[in-house]
């Protein structure tokens, strides 16, 4: 019954310290419930990104990995956009083509 008690209380403002209390609680409880120290959590996020980057190019500026509560169950929700593949060079190892983007040119050091 969403809104039932809010309606009962004739409540409107979402700007007072009440909503701040709610926000703080949500943050505190996510971490209480997952029971994982912040540094382990950061390590896990980094590792998830690393695994995905092995397969695709990740747009690392727009990655969002966050904890969420679904009822009483904590979940990790990841939004990891890939970089657009402008041109897909078939990365066939026995048929290396010359790189076309200037950036990749720069990376490619003379062997």
């Amino acid at each position, binding site marked *: 019954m969403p809104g039932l008690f809010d309606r*009962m*209380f004739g409540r*409107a403002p979402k700007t007072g310290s009440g909503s701040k209390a709610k926000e703080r609680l949500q943050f505190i409880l996510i971490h209480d419930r997952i029971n994982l120290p912040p540094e382990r959590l950061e390590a896990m996020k980094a590792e998830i990104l690393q695994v995905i980057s092995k397969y695709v190019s990740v747009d690392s500026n727009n990655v969002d990995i966050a904890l969420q509560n679904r009822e009483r169950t904590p979940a990790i929700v990841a939004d990891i956009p890939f970089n657009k593949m402008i041109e897909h060079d078939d990365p066939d190892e026995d048929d290396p083509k010359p790189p076309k983007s200037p950036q990749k040119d720069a990376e490619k050091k003379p062997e």
Partner: protein
Amino acid sequence: MGANGGAAAKPQPPRKSATGAKVITVTSGKGGVGKTTTTANIGVALARLDQRVVLIDADLGLRNLDIIMGLENRIVYDLVDVVEGRCKLRQAMIKHKQLPELYLIPAAQTRDKTAVSPADMIKMADQMRPEFDFILIDCPAGIERGFRNAVAPADEVLIVTNPEVSAVRDADRIIGLLEAEGKKTPHLILNRVKTEMIRKGEMLSPEDVTDILAIKLIGIVPEDENVVSSSNSGMPLAFLDGSRAGTAYRNIARRLMGENVPFMQLDDNSGFLKRIQRLFGGQTG
């Protein structure tokens, strides 16, 4: 007022419950949220609804329920005396004078907190089940031995909290511990609710709290100065008709008995009681 009060005074013939008493533990995690007051008032409210009730104070070393109930001068034996075999269970049960179907087993004030085990509590509750309708256990604050003792025999757990960050956080911890123990999902009592502050957006609303904790409410108790004065005189508020908090406690009692009681409109202005009467068609409580 007093639609329930009238019927409650009638003496009832002794009867045996078909199913035995329901054991309800009142807990909170955090101290000072009104756990003991809640236990006392629900007990009184249930007894006034003709239920046979025993209250157990499980807060060893820091007993309080006897004071709130106004029974502190009548203690001879306590919970630890029962567990250690110094007296019979019946001898430790203090009968309330106004409500002859209401009993209290006080906590020990001086003894070691480890004197009682969860198994002792289960045994004691089982011994009383056939003769009562409700056994209410007042749990100590914290999550240690005393908590485990108090929830061990519980069929149902009520979590008391206040609309404050720290109290809700501790309530969440308790819910997690009960989940881990495989207990039935507890119900929530939101105590000391200040309607005016909620309206201004300066306090967590019942909906905010249930959103966060994801358990069901069984009661919303408004902040009420009468709670203090009734504690002063050792006469729980639920004895009297007409107070806002007292009505909230009686509603909780009725919900525990399986009645579907709508949540009351909490309002600070003087039209409060009239509105309640209208809502319930004169049947307050």
